[in-house]
């Protein structure tokens, strides 16, 4: 039983981490007033560039860097389309996802079925072998810890620094921010690229740590779930943590239940995370006033500065 609990917690943390990473990035993007629906596409591109770079170089670190770069590159395209060319953000985000799918399966075609390098799990002598707490607290890979750190850094940045205040102000009213003299485009560019980097890293985690291999459409909708998580958290970092672990647990559970051969047909269990997402969204969104109160007022609205 103890063994079961330990492996359960360790696995849930692994399956929650990509969700948390991607959602943290998207939270920052949305707080600046930009809705980037291309998280799934950026994750896929991150996953494939990360895997290919990791496989060719043999280095997980290089792989993860490449994953970040992949995500950033794709988000830069999004930023150019939506911030410079003022395209519809919904359409541009969808384009990102469609392109990400195509690009990742094209690049990854030659790498299907290869076992790539794997991100090692921490092994602190003594500590990591304490029953239960050892593996859970001291036996994770670096990105699990990193995802917590990033979330804390983002929360600190948004609520404790002036730059974070400026970013929130741009999401709240880009006209007012512009009138006071802030560069709306520049701040949003930064936020979009950060979102891209985090989504890319989340993809890299999928292909280099979670299941160290490449398969077509590896992320299986996790980018979309990350988007739903931001709504679930009503744009507050603290809630993101709970949401990511809730969904991570459900995703793992659906794998686990299939593994132990429960009588429920496995497609139903596989569909569970997506059904739960819809149900949770319904519960959260029902209170329109609450959503409206927390949602960045300029979310999804293009800004033309004229200057």
């Amino acid at each position: 039983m103890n063994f079961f609990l330990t492996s359960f917690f360790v696995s849930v943390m692994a399956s929650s981490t990509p969700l948390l990473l991607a959602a943290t990035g998207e939270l920052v993007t949305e707080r600046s007033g930009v809705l980037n629906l291309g998280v799934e596409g950026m994750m896929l591109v991150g996953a494939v560039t990360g895997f290919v770079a990791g496989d060719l170089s043999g280095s997980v670190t290089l792989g993860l860097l490449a994953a970040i770069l992949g995500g950033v590159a794709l988000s830069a395209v999004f930023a150019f389309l939506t911030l410079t060319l003022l395209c519809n953000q919904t359409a541009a985000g969808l384009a990102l996802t469609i392109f990400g799918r195509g690009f990742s399966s094209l690049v990854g075609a030659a790498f299907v079925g290869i076992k790539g390098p794997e991100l090692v799990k921490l092994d602190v002598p003594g500590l990591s072998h304490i029953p239960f707490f050892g593996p859970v607290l001291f036996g994770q890979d670096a990105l699990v810890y990193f995802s917590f750190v990033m979330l804390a850094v983002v929360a600190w940045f948004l609520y404790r620094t002036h730059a974070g205040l400026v970013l929130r102000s741009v999401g709240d009213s880009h006209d007012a921010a512009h009138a006071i003299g802030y560069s709306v485009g520049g701040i949003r560019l930064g936020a979009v690229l950060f979102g891209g980097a985090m989504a890319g890293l989340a993809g890299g985690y999928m292909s280099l740590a979670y299941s160290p291999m490449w398969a077509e459409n590896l992320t299986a909708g996790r980018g979309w779930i990350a988007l739903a998580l931001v709504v679930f958290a009503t744009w507050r970092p603290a809630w993101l943590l709970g949401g990511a672990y809730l969904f991570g647990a459900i995703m793992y559970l659906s794998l686990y239940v299939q593994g132990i051969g429960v009588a429920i047909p496995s497609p139903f269990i596989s569909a569970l995370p997506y059904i739960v997402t819809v149900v949770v969204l319904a519960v959260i969104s029902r209170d329109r006033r609450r959503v409206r109160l927390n949602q960045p007022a300029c979310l999804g609205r293009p800004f033309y500065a004229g200057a």
Partner: protein
Amino acid sequence: MLNQTAADGGPYLSLRGVTKQFPGCLANDHVDLMVGRNEIHALLGENGAGKSTLVKIIYGVLRPDEGEIVWRGEKVTVQSPAHARRLGIGMVFQHFSLFESLTVAENVALGMNDPKDRANLRERIVDISQRYGLPLSPDQTVHDLSVGERQRIEIVRCLLQNPKLLIMDEPTSVLTPQEVEKLFATLRRLASEGCSILYISHKLEEIRALCGAATIMRLGRVVAHCTPSEKSAKELAELMINAELDPPERSRRVVAKDAKPKLVVDRLTIKSPHPFGTDLKEIGFSVYPGEIVGVAGIAGNGQTELMDALSGEVPSGAPERILLDGVAIGHSGPQQRRALGGCFVPEERNGHGAIGAMTLSENAFLTASARRSLARFGFVSQARTVDFARQIIRGFDVRTTGPKAQARSLSGGNLQKFLIGREVMQAPMLLVINQPTWGVDAGAAAAIYRALAELAEKGAAVLIISQDLDEIFLVCDRVAVIAGGRLSPPIPVKQATIEQIGLVMSGAAAKSEDGASVREHA
């Protein structure tokens, strides 16, 4: 030499030959302006005279095409608002640059470029706000605050940076008379402490009371410099609009004793659906055929909510709260109300009364499809719709290329004429208009007033919701005041004075003796 003049108390700010061209409009044409130390200087002009453009140039939001700005003896190019603030120029915008979801302190911090200005911010906000009589608590969120409180944030934000010049763009249009008095006290104190003030307004009495000097603009040009206290309001107004001000005395209609009201609103109470809106409380009034009734009030006192309740966008508590020609319509939608003869023109033209990206004929179809039979068997009758749009364009002198022109290609005044024409030409029994001449040039405003008067002559009931008291006194037969979501009983305009109505607008009248006298007249 220039430095010397500045030190002597010569001009603090001087503009020479500032010119700004927009496509199709020369917004500023060689404008000269001088503001001295300790001076409260008025910049006076009608909508579209170029005042806002000029102050945006001073504040670094826009760059002039030509001309120079001399600030405290030195020629400067103001690069940006941040640069302006570093130079000691602060500005309070007409449309506040505030962030609804942030606190007062955060809003103030966002206006500070220098990190050291942000130290001990909350203490300093409290300190400044007490010193200048601008009560504020730093931790309140902006969306919970009244318009007057919001303006205080803007002012405190400026004052914290010790400005040498404070620009105020139409600061009193959103304030009650009481708040205006307090603001003036603050401004006078600031000026006495060495901060010059550039005060933009089109309200003549205010300027005479407050300002030591004035520059008057018309159509982008400076037409006069003067000392406002030496001129009468009428003289100032004539300078401003270059026409002898003699409003044609309209024959006030007297409603026949036995006439039945077209619109009856009875104890209408609605909770605003907007998180920060105003609830309507126990509103009651009637509008009779052939009369124009005005609803005066300061923005944000329930005008939008009243308009939505009348037009049917928001249903009323019970059907009989609103009667249109005797029919209870409180629960009817906008289409049913139109079918019964109620027509409406909302305040916001683009996106509410009209769709900018659609053609004029499509916009004509928007509200007139039923009353003008523009649809047949569920399909749009193209010929009839285009013809109707053409009739509006002709009948209301709308300057446009034709029915196929996009609504957004029209100027504000022309689009407003089109929208009012669209409703008037449906021969309504009741017409309700929110802010009929908001942002409209004088020519179009005159045409609109004429159309409303004619409609009333024909026996329709007309209700005007307006922030502009002068307008209400010009066109209305009776006037009521909305304040805090409550409506005072309408009284004949002939028996009312602007001062009286102004008092009710502040919400104080209900308890005061003046208020009692207002009610007596009713």
